[in-house]
């Protein structure tokens, strides 16, 4: 089994393009959740989201989600300094959910409302989630194994876990992994209908929390065999030391009430990394701010770490729930917390829920060195992924 390290990062987020803007925003505890501009929201209780600000790089003829994926993927590949030969062998594992739905919806809405169906090719070309992988793979010349994973809210994290396995198994020396999602009507309306959205910016772990905020963006990382990275003099951010992927197999939308699958994902990541819970200094939580998730996640954290034993914060408080991008964007934040030290805060947290037995780093980043950190992504209906990063 080979050691897997992170040698490149890329992001485009509600704070704008680039890892730098992303980390600055997250570190400062700035909330990027604002009134929606991309889609109509009349009649919905929640009318806010964390959108990537205009202009989004790339040709307007390309689907928004493809452009987000390409921007972040390109930054990560350039950051890692991978040449053409390395790219040709590199695997590409992409987490996706909405695909090109935003453009497909615009076409469909227009067709249904006007009774006229304009030619669909342009709008429907990128409708399916695999579009990001084919666009990124062809534009960046990536010739290794190529897969698109759809595991709801944990897709971005699952892509890193699968890519890490490919590198650890020795199938490829390098892999680009990450997730991308653009705001879509279906996602926004659906979560509104399920009453899972807070009309105001979400407040993870707060006693007064009322639900999620939706976001969009893309985050990609380059994962590499440690020996291969050393041989080419690559800069190493951190080690991806272990992961755990589990399924609640309980209910299509509700998590298991005891957080059993969540706890198992964390325990598996710890076991595979051979890290004791007490060595973990920070948990980047799934932290969606629904009443259920935060309570159950806290219960699972308690089972694995014990009360108060680790700092916990939710990046979703600032960038919303970026769906397929969440797992990978939040992994980027977790990696940077290890490298640059301040543990990012939870924004909008004024009255911590006493049922959550952890310091959730309200408002202000915490200056503290952390040896190991985990990032949790607990997808809708029990698709759980935990990634464990270790300082390198």
């Amino acid at each position, binding site marked *: 089994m080979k050691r897997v390290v992170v040698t490149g990062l890329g992001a485009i987020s509600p704070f704008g393009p680039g890892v730098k803007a992303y980390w600055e925003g997250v570190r400062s505890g700035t909330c990027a959740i604002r009134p929606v501009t991309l889609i109509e929201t009349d*009649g919905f209780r929640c009318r806010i989201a964390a959108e990537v600000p205009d202009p989004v790089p790339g040709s307007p003829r390309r689907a928004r989600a493809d452009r987000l994926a390409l921007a972040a993927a390109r930054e990560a590949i350039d950051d890692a300094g991978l040449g053409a030969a390395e790219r040709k062998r590199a695997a*590409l594992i992409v987490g996706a*959910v909405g695909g090109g*739905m935003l453009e497909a*919806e615009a076409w*469909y809405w227009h067709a*249904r*409302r006007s009774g006229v169906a304009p030619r*669909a*090719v342009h709008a*429907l*070309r*990128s*409708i*399916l*989630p*695999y579009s990001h992988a*084919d*666009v990124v*793979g*062809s534009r960046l*010349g990536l*010739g*290794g*194994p*190529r*897969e*698109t*994973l*759809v*595991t*709801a809210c944990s897709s971005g994290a*699952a892509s890193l876990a*699968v890519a890490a*396995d490919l590198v*650890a*198994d020795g*199938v490829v020396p390098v892999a680009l992994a990450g997730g991308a999602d653009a705001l879509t*009507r*279906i*996602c926004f*309306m*659906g979560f*509104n*209908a*399920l009453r899972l959205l807070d009309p105001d910016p979400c407040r993870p772990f707060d006693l007064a929390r009322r639900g999620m905020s939706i976001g969009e963006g893309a985050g990609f990382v380059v994962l590499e065999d440690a020996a291969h990275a050393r041989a080419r003099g690559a800069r190493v951010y951190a080690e991806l030391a272990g992961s755990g*992927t*589990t*399924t*609640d*197999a*309980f*209910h*299509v*939308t509700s998590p298991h009430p005891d957080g059993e699958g969540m706890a*198992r994902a964390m325990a598996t990541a710890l076991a595979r990394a051979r890290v004791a819970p007490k060595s973990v200094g920070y948990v980047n939580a799934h932290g969606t701010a629904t009443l259920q998730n935060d309570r159950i996640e806290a219960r699972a954290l308690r089972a694995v770490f014990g009360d108060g034993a680790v700092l916990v914060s939710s990046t979703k408080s600032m960038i919303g729930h970026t769906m397929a991008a969440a797992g990978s964007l939040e992994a980027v934040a977790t990696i940077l917390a290890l490298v640059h030290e301040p543990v990012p805060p939870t924004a909008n947290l004024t009255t911590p829920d006493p049922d959550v037995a952890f310091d959730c780093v309200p408002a202000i980043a915490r200056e503290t060195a952390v040896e190991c950190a985990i990032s949790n992504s607990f997808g*809708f*209906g*029990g*698709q759980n992924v935990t990634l464990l990063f270790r300082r390198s």
Partner: protein
Amino acid sequence: MTPRVVITGVGAVTAGVTGGAAAVHAFLSEPRPALGCMADSALAARLLDGEARRLSRVCQFAVTAGRLAVDDAGLTAGDDVDLVLGTEFGDLRSTVEFADGYLASGPPGLSALIFPNTVMNTMAAATTIAVGAKGSSLTLNAPTVAGELAIVRATAAIAGGRASAVLAGGVDQIDPFLVSMLEELGTGGERQGEGAVVLVLETEAAARERGAHRLGEIMGSASGALAARPHGVGRSVRSSVVADALAAAGVGARDLGVVYVSASGDRARDAWETGLLTAALGVDHERRSALRHLIGAHAGAGALGVVAAAEAARASGRPSLVHGVARGGSQVALVVGP
């Protein structure tokens, strides 16, 4: 020592065959064309009370095939049983239905029941609940080769010691919206099918210990991506994927018996595949369709092709090759033994 990976069960829900290993074997012995939509009556009898109400059609395919596969293998699912399901189109019908509800009546027309189906992992989620598989659950989305890729992923999980058993396969549903969309995108003649096929993969040692029947072995596999525009067919036929799969299996091109291809009537892509295989193997191998000409193109066809390949290996005494290539460039090869 890398554990050997064997197939211990199959569940198929397609227009041509619905059942476990015995039914699949009977179908493969006397294959008949079975394109088009499945009769719903075949499914209704196999679902539990309440499932027909709550599961969308494509979820019903996957759940039924998953159950058939688990029963066929005599497996009890648990914490260390994974699921990997490939799909090309997911539950697009539910997505359209969900959107139509809104377009007809605004926000009150949205359905909470349909919403979860608008995310492509809904079939996998329903199947894990139905069989109690609590390990990792992945949905792979790819054109053409999603089922084959799922089996490659599953094989790696078992060989890497991350799972004791994996349910792996593919599922897709024919939908009129989809069909018209594909016509516009110009897939040049491909015939669609629908259904679900799920295999159970385990280590050979675990299978032997359980006394499970052995349908075949995944001796080696590889995947990669060829240069091509999205939805496009590439120009080059140079690729190391087949050679990598053969090397992983410890088998030479001349040792192969039958080669199963992903050809499905998409003339340009089928021609590309022929070029790739000729370049990798030479022209000496008997080629047989991976059943897509019989049961149509859908993600389950890849998994069924692996079972067919195993049977052919048993009959010929030589390992088979299962090959697939998709528009956009994804390529996959599996060496399958008896």
